């Protein structure tokens, strides 16, 4: 019988630092490999869309980015809550490390959406329910980042950020519902984003590859950022001093 895996081992920042360091080369490598494969399939193999022509190809970046923007927010709220409830420093650091990546994905989804909207709808922006909620999600990310950054005391910052992230996560469905309702009342369904056309297999493959690439990227960049946060917070400990000394010896 295998011994049970002791996950809590990695709650210690020093061990998490080594785990992240061991995983990171693999994660970055798979990010590059998956991105190259996904973009190749998306741009060169997938067929041209009958209605939208070539412009539809931005979907391979747009849709995975939109998915990630939502998943990262939930992950951020989850880790922040965990860190707050159990006083787990590592979980709070992960939440902080996730926020900029989530904001980046949200911005990317909005930006690629605008680039896609111009040729297909003839406008950069419509006040569609999804677009509006995505914009509000960006505001929620910015609020979290701003709050955490303005509190000098690290522990207070972690806890206040956790409270805000949880409140935000609870509010996201309410905001989405209200925006959806507001939108249908105001302009009617001029543009239907929900009626998904049938997709060719290669399109689906490209989308899946890009989604996996974004996942790998998110893991890689969050772990790298978490490493930096660990070094910053643990700078007075013995193991960081040792690490700094060995690094110096190499150079």
């Amino acid at each position, binding site marked *: 019988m295998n011994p049970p895996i002791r996950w809590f081992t990695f709650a210690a920042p020093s061990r998490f630092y080594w785990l992240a360091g061991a995983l990171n080369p693999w994660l970055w490598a798979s990010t590059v490999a998956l991105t190259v494969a996904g973009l190749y399939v998306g741009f060169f193999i997938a067929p041209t869309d009958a209605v939208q022509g070539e412009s539809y190809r931005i979907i391979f970046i747009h849709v995975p980015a939109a998915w990630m923007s939502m998943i990262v927010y939930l992950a951020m709220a989850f880790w922040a809550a965990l860190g707050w409830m159990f006083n787990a420093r590592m979980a709070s650091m992960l939440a902080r490390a996730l926020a900029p990546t989530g904001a980046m994905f949200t911005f990317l989804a909005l930006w690629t959406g605008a680039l896609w909207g111009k040729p297909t709808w003839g406008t950069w922006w419509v006040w569609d329910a999804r677009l509006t909620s995505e914009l509000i999600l960006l505001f929620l990310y910015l609020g979290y980042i701003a709050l955490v950054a303005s509190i000098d005391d690290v522990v*207070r910052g972690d806890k206040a950020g956790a409270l805000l992230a949880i409140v935000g996560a609870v509010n996201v469905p309410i*905001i989405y519902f209200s925006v959806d309702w507001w939108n249908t009342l105001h302009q009617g369904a001029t543009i239907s984003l929900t009626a998904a056309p049938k997709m060719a297999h290669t399109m689906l493959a490209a989308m899946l590859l890009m989604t996996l690439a974004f996942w790998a990227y998110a893991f890689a960049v969050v772990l790298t950022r978490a490493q930096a946060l660990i070094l910053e917070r643990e700078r007075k400990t013995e193991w960081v001093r040792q690490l700094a000394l060995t690094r110096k010896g190499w150079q």
Partner: protein
Amino acid sequence: MSSAFSAVYVRDLRLALRRRVEALLPAIFFVVAVSLFPLGVGPEPQTLREIAAGIVWVCALLASMLSVTSLYAGDHLDGSLEQMMLSGQPGFVIASAKAAAHWTVTGAPLVLAAPLIGLLLDMSSAALATLVVSLLLGTPILSLLGGMGAALTLGLRSAGVLLILLILPLTIPALIFGAGAVGAVDSGLSSAGHFSLLGALLILTALTAPMATALALRIALE
């Protein structure tokens, strides 16, 4: 518990009464901000009538957010907030009393000023009545959420702007249903659905926001 609520509530009202001009500032800001819009978008009554409810609601939102920053700041500076939190009374009772006092001092004047403002923007009497009811249901939500933001940003350097950034996204549902109620009446529909949702939002916020505020106060005072 109810005595703690009324003690904090009455105290805050008394403090506000001693600084009358300060208490009236949000309402004055509200009137000034609304009257800027005709200067910006032009005086055509048709345009103004169409955007009136939205303008009034957005300005009420901003007036609440600007005034709520000081809700806990003064008590935090002179130490009375810590005394309140140490008094053994539940934190959410104190938080609700503070939010209720904030609404009485700033939210209620906004509701009272709204019909006057609406007349400036050429709103019909039916729309005006709807606007007043929607503000009556909606401004307490703003005070409750704003109280939470004030507790989260307590003692921070850029508390004012930060609070607005944190809380405005959360107030969007109230804005949508509040301004939407007037829009529904204007287009000949019933505003009952909007009022029900606004009421549900108020109940939900009244039940949860004081708890979150109390938690945020504990985090800030640790």
